[in-house]
């Protein structure tokens, strides 16, 4: 489903990703953990070309972009259509209601008929528990509700893969659960997901695999039970120790 090959990313002199290779099968949930600045966000953003990797290739579904060569302009939106992204700060469109936020992608990008798009958006919002908030503006919603709209907005494009960048870090503790619950349900339905998070409980319970990143490298990847119980690498051990 996803194959990343030797992805490098440099910001001027700062070498943030130093050759990341990774493949994720359809329906798997991969959780990425690691210290601040290790490149987790950058890696996710390289997957939907919000950052253009300096070199390496990214393949999602049947769209493959090789960034070592010159990338065609038209192929970037194609890659983005394969992925749905959920942001730490939600990034909802503040001038649109919840349902308008969700139908915006299908209507503008896929030229779906408005009424059809609205019906689908309403269904998605019901699915994330916001069936009664369709006409609320983001400013009228709690953080947890906004993030669930964010998830629905990403799902509306029928992505092959969902990318989550610390979806619960901006939330008050009592609102974290409602977002994680939606994510768990998605995982159970077989959605392929890559999740950057500090929620170790979520990782333990939902992830098929946990990846530990540090200083632009994938240091270690394993099942959650193995990685949390008996990390092979010293750096992983230190990081996990630090969390407790």
């Amino acid at each position, binding site marked *: 489903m996803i194959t990343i090959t030797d992805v490098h990313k440099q910001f001027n002199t700062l070498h943030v990703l130093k050759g990341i290779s990774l493949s994720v099968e359809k329906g798997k949930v991969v959780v990425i953990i690691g210290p601040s600045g290790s490149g987790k966000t950058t890696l996710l953003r390289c997957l*939907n070309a*919000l950052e253009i990797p300096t070199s390496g290739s990214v393949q999602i579904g049947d769209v493959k972009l090789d960034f070592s060569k010159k990338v065609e302009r038209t192929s970037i939106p194609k890659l*983005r259509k394969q992925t749905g992204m959920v*942001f730490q700060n939600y990034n*909802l*469109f503040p*001038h649109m209601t919840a349902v308008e936020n969700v139908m915006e992608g299908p209507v503008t990008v*896929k030229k779906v008929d408005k009424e059809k798009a609205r019906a689908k958006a309403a269904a998605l919002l019901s699915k994330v528990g916001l069936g009664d908030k369709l006409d609320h503006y983001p400013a009228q919603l709690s953080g947890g509700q906004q993030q669930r709209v964010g998830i629905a907005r*990403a799902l509306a494009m029928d992505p092959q893969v969902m990318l989550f960048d610390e979806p619960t870090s901006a939330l008050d503790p009592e609102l974290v659960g409602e977002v994680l619950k939606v994510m768990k349900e998605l995982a159970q339905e077989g959605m392929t997901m890559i999740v950057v998070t500090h929620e170790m409980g979520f990782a333990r319970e939902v992830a098929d695999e946990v990846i530990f990143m540090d200083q632009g490298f994938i240091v270690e990847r394993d099942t959650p039970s193995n990685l949390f119980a008996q990390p092979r690498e010293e750096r992983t051990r230190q990081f996990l120790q630090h969390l407790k």
Partner: protein
Amino acid sequence: MVPSQKYQRNGLVQMSLSSFFENPERLNRWMDIAQSSFLPLLKGALLYSLTIAIASFFIGLIIAVLTALARLSGIKPLIAIARVYVSIIRGTPLLVQLFIIFYGLPSIGLMIDPIPSAIIGFSLSVGAYSSEVVRAAILSIHKGQWEAAYSVGMTYWQALRRVVLPQAARVSIPPLSNSFISLVKDTSLASVVLVPEMFRKAQEVVAATYEPLLVYVEAALIYWMICFVLSIIQDRIENKLDRYV
């Protein structure tokens, strides 16, 4: 041909303040002139001043958005063109620009009628001044909004049109509505390119009646009235937009 402007100060009926108020005939005459000139002046204001202001403002806004986008494009020639345009317009008086368009361009065979001349001049002016407002407004929109738009597969133009500009518009409505009100007042400059707008009408009435104080104050009051109504509309719009953002 030079406009027949009579900024005449001699030959007026000169009179001391006290004798003015002791002269009921003069007062009656004022009432008559005020009455008979009010409708023509108002007509000049609504038909020309306001219409020219509205047309110029919309054309100007389109120019402003394009100029702002050029400035933000990162493409050097575009940035340079936009900069030169803004610099020229801001660095020269509007009155001089209007003269160049109306009296200057015919020398190279470009005869433009009074109203189009005025609209061109005012649009270019609005475009330059507002481009800075629009640019600042676009820059004020959080980068995450672009990214969210891109992440659902939008192109640059889709993200701009559907996500960024609507929000930038909200940010720029207060400063832009101020410029619109200024523009309504600036349309009085169109009198020099022979547009029969309110101020030119007022000059005509003065030429016929030799009552400049009365007529110009009357014109001033009409401008004030219009701008007062506009500022009420401005407040309404701002309150409405503030509601959810």
